């Protein structure tokens, strides 16, 4: 090329320098984005790993298989097999004697007490009581039962109690460790899947506690919340979006709905306390009230989601319907609402998932009670899953830690399934045009 050839200003060294700078800038932005994603994923991963790491052991529990003798003279001295008598009988003694005969060389009072602490005192006695009560023919016989060990033994075997720590700094004595090791070696003490955790209700003893009561309470409250907030929320949104005149009043309502979405959940709890409990006199701790409070809390979320779903429907579809002589109401209900259905559903499910994880408002209306029965109606006292987690996290024994994590795992699994359902429904219902 001759020196006279004109070079474009985009081919000079300065231009190439500028281009390189621009590319470097764009690359920096890309790396920053990747870094942000990595940090977010790392935090999420950390959360999951730590939860599963501490929680998974709660799904297993150590059980002792032991042969007990149901002496008629101890349990039913009159031989009447009277239900009341069978219920009141001293089953603790049955377990104790079974343990003493398993370890006959334990004779002193302290040793005996210490030996009995290996099994779950109330768990074992209640289990035998229940068996005899249901089948009085067992009296006078020798039966083999499998009972949960005490939470301390369970924790020891799960490695949560340090065997090498000085004896007076740990909850399990050297002698107890010796017995436990013997029982494990002989195969009498084994680890099994902890069905009780999923089927039992709350208990003072961690080895007996389960989440069933809380799950049922949560499900009931959520059902009430759904029935209250979805019809009301969707109805209000459709009316506000499609039929309400646009004036100062509706503007005011819209602003307030948006404000309501930002109100802290505990305020809804106070509202429930003041209105539902104190004014209407509804029962405390009931899933009905909990559900109504959660429903109120979810209402603005559903209204906002529904309105934006309606707004996202292409106006050309509505124009098409109107141009055929459909009335405005027909255009809305034949075309707009069906096309917005997936968005409405997704919004509702996400609102419900939010409500499921909500703790604060339930504390205010008394759903924080210690409830040992699975509620059978929405008027009975109940607990809820997040409240159960809150209660357990506050308890002292080492065994509660893993149960708290396990309950959180269950809650997260339920939440993730709800979100998965939302995604599935969205992809199924979404119609493109």
């Amino acid at each position, binding site marked *: 090329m001759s020196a006279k050839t004109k070079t474009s200003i985009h081919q000079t060294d300065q231009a190439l320098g500028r281009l390189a700078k621009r590319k470097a800038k764009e690359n920096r932005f890309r790396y920053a984005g990747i870094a942000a994603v990595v940090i977010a994923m790392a935090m999420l991963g950390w959360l999951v790993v730590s939860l599963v790491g501490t929680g998974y052991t709660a799904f297993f529990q150590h059980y002792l298989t032991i042969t007990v003798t149901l002496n008629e003279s101890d349990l039913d001295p009159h031989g009447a097999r009277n239900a009341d008598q069978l219920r009141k009988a001293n089953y603790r003694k049955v377990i104790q004697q079974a343990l003493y005969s398993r370890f006959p060389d334990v004779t002193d009072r302290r040793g005996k007490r210490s030996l009995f602490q290996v099994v779950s005192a109330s768990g074992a006695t209640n289990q035998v009581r229940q068996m005899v009560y249901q089948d009085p023919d067992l009296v006078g016989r020798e039966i083999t039962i499998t009972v949960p060990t005490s939470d301390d033994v369970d924790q020891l075997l799960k490695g949560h109690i340090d065997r090498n720590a000085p004896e007076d700094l740990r909850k399990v004595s050297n002698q107890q460790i010796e017995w436990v090791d013997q029982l494990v070696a002989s195969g009498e003490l084994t680890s099994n899947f902890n069905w009780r955790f999923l089927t039992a209700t709350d208990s003072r003893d961690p080895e007996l506690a389960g989440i069933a009561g809380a799950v049922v309470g949560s499900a009931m409250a959520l059902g009430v919340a759904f029935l209250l907030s979805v019809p009301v929320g969707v109805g209000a949104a459709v009316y506000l979006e499609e039929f309400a005149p*646009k004036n100062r009043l509706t503007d005011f309502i819209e602003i307030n709905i948006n404000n309501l979405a930002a109100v802290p959940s505990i305020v809804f709890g106070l509202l429930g306390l003041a209105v539902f409990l104190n004014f209407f006199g509804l029962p405390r701790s009931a899933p009905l009230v909990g559900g109504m409070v959660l429903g109120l809390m979810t209402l603005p979320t559903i209204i906002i989601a529904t309105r934006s779903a309606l707004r996202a429907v*292409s106006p*050309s*579809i*509505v*124009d*098409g*319907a*109107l*141009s*055929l*002589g*459909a*009335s*405005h109401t*027909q255009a809305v209900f*034949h*075309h707009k609402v069906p*096309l917005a259905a997936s968005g409405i559903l997704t919004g509702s499910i996400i609102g419900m998932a939010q409500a499921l994880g909500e703790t604060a408002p339930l504390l205010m209306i008394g759903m924080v009670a210690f409830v040992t029965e699975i509620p059978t109606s929405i008027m009975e006292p109940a607990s809820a899953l997040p409240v159960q987690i809150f209660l357990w996290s506050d308890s002292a024994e080492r065994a509660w830690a893993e149960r708290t994590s396990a309950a959180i795992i269950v809650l997260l699994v339920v939440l993730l399934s709800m979100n998965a359902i939302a995604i599935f429904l969205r992809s199924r219902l979404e*119609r*493109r*045009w």
Partner: protein
Amino acid sequence: MSALKTNHLGHPRSMFDTGKVIDMKATTSEANTARVKFKCRNVEVFYSGKRALHGVNMDVPDSGVTALIGPSGCGKSTFLRVFNRMNDTIPNARVAGQILMDGQDIYGRDVDPVLLRARVGMVFQKPNPFPKSIFDNVAYGPRIHGLAPRKNDLDNIVEKSLMRAGLWNEVKDRLKEPGTGLSGGQQQRLVIARAIAVSPEVILMDEPASALDPIATAKLEELIDELKEKYCILIVTHSMAQAARVSQKTAFFHLGDLVEYDDTQAIFTNPKDQRTQDYITGRTG
């Protein structure tokens, strides 16, 4: 020139009126024989108080195709939407003046826009089939108006409408498939079939070919040519060639005014107004 003071109905004319009365009698003899479908007198449209259409006076014949042409923003689409009161759906839009359809004021108190729109169908710029099956698209109108009490009637209406829209042979084996799965040209013909299915008297078309390729456009124009035998058609178009091909009457709009309205042939060969001439020769617009 008493027409400047009042129109033939005795309504006072707007002070913004351009002073032009396009009189059907002044045009060709063909126009004299055609019945008038719409009599528009001093039609004005306001969007949020801003006047988009300046007192249009125009008589639309009962038969044939009437084309509305003009540069973007001239008010031709706004004017088209006056005929089926689609402007009612736009918030803050207001229509003034008088539009008589077969002598009846369509903006009168006793006229329900829902029934008016059943008589005056519309086809939009972008094909907008419902995200439903081809059958349901066509059947929607008859269903909401209760035109087909029996399933059999509905099948007949759907078949006849699709045939008339020249789509039957292409879709008869897949009526259950979504209408949105058709090609652009087919979608536009589906939308025409949907409009025909409610037996309208008039079909409004708002740039119906602007999203179509030349082959689909040719098919659509052929269809319009056939439909004009049964329906009064008003078409807004950006393409002057299209207006020349499909229409019998043409109205040229400019900046909200109806500048010139005449037989299509007259407009394209011998425009009276300088603005019309500039536009059709490509000097403006």
